[in-house]
């Protein structure tokens, strides 16, 4: 067990090093002078020289990378070019709304998608199954921001049930918090629900036809324990994998959803940073998001061994 965790930690470190190399290299691989890229189109020669000196871009590349990596490992992500404030501080300030949205979406999606998938597998071939699967294809095809505007036009503009946009912190007002996140969660959740429902159905179908499930039926066990205990548990490995891989999708979706609903989270920080070419922020956000993604998948890999004792690395 300990050996497994250590080995997985090792490969996680390698992946994160590659990510760091990539984030660092991107600026230098891009055509043109990195200082000029950061300075933007209307910068003077002095601006460019100032940025080059400030970011140490006049040093050898290897030295730059080592210095940069050392800063990152001590939690220093550099300073924003636009506001000159520490990137780590800016990211910490914007963390709450993004984390809240990602969490509500994750909970909502799993709670809706897993039962839908089980239902579709249990009644495979029926109209219920076809309905769930049609929804899954549709959910996978309608882009997040398109569905978000359908919801806004319906619930905010026409019915006036929910606020058009904005975010209320749960520390201020729990009711307002839930209201402000209702539409974003639904919009962001649709793709995720489609993804998880589909894999749940496929994984359950694979298990349901096995002999021991027939044995369970034959010995007169009720349907619910068969589906939930005997079938869902072995089927949960691919489901959990998909939830983990889907986090990448979720992160991309958070950026877009926050932009649509004017939620002041990491996504908005990113979009503002792109428009201002505030490169240290973009680098920091990519590192944080990728780190979260890799960590979640590391945890999932370890969780596997509890779900399925046959898995040994």
């Amino acid at each position, binding site marked *: 067990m300990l050996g497994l965790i250590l080995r997985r930690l090792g*490969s996680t470190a*390698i*992946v*994160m*090093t*590659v*990510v760091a*190399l*990539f*984030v660092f290299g*991107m*600026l230098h691989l*891009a*055509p*043109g002078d990195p200082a000029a*890229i950061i300075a933007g189109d209307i910068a003077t020669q002095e601006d460019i020289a100032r940025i080059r000196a400030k970011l140490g871009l006049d040093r050898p590349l290897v030295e730059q990378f080592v210095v940069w990596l050392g800063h990152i490992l001590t939690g220093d992500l550099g300073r924003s070019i636009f506001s000159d404030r520490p990137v780590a501080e800016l990211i910490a300030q914007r963390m709450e709304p993004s984390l809240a949205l990602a969490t509500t979406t994750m909970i909502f999606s799993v709670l809706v998608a897993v039962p839908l998938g089980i239902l579709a597998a249990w009644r*495979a*071939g029926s109209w219920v199954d076809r309905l769930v699967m049609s929804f899954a*294809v*549709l959910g*996978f*095809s*309608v*882009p*997040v*921001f*398109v569905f978000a*505007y*359908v919801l*806004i*036009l319906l619930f905010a*503009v026409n019915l006036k049930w929910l606020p*058009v946009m904005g975010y209320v912190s749960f520390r201020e007002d729990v009711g307002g918090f839930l209201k402000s996140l209702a539409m974003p969660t639904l919009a962001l959740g649709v793709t995720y629900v489609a993804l998880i429902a589909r894999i749940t159905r496929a994984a359950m*179908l694979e298990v349901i*036809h096995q002999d021991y499930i027939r044995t369970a039926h034959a010995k007169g066990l009720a349907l619910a324990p068969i589906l939930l205990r005997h079938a869902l548990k072995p089927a949960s490995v691919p489901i959990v994998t998909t939830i983990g891989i889907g986090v*990448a*999708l979720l*992160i*991309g979706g958070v*950026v*877009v959803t926050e*932009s*649509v609903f004017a939620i002041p989270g990491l996504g908005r920080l*990113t*979009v503002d*940073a*792109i*428009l201002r*070419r505030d*490169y240290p922020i*973009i*680098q920091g*956000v*990519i590192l944080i*998001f*990728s780190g979260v*993604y*890799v960590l979640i998948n590391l945890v999932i890999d370890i969780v596997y061994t509890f779900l399925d004792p046959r898995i040994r690395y």
Partner: protein
Amino acid sequence: MAAASPLESTSRPTTGGFRLFARRYPTVVAGVAILLVMVAIAVFAPWIAPEDPARINPRLRLRPPSAAHWFGTDHLGRDVFSRTLHGARVSLFVGFTVALTSTLIGLAIGLVSGFLRRIDAVVMRIMDGLMAIPAILLAIAMISLSRSSIRTVIVAITIPAIPPLVVQATYVCASAIIIEAILSFLGAGTPPDIPSWGNMMAEGRTYVLVGWWLLVFPGLFLSLVVLAVNLLGDGLRETLDPRLRRSARNL
């Protein structure tokens, strides 16, 4: 990739064969039909569109759909119907190009690292690292480094699409179309002088309270195209994968 030939072999050129195929795989037929219409729209947009998509008409700003302007007009008085038709060009071009190039590059990398074991380990670590970065963020970061043009957008979407190596081309195509739209919607994609569904919705979002048609029509076309590609992809997988076919018969 060998998508077309088995399709043809199951649907014989006779109408009876086609009817049988259509009955067994209605979704594939629907997907292909929608795609064909969209490709036709994209190719012939300059001739079908009633107006020049860039023509500004200040006296006709934000008019709802009418007989003269089927999809209404935008904040500059441009014809939304003509712009929506032209928007098909960017989406389909990006989708097909990214699917093709990422498949070819993925194939080349797979072949080379399959033969040269020493390179394999390094290449796979690089791919793992690339996969750890969410595709949209990676694309955004790459675009922020250079001027936004269709070519930059295509490169920025293609690179994150390479690492999975074995993914159905239709899936890559669908997600490329979505990512292009998202990038354009965020203001980091197709330049504003070329109408794309994403940047039309970006311009329309300011008028969400007064001009629903600015968001609904481009959004509808975008969703339809992605849906068509996904239907085609699902259908192809079902027809090509004998394992799936058998399990479907069992049910």
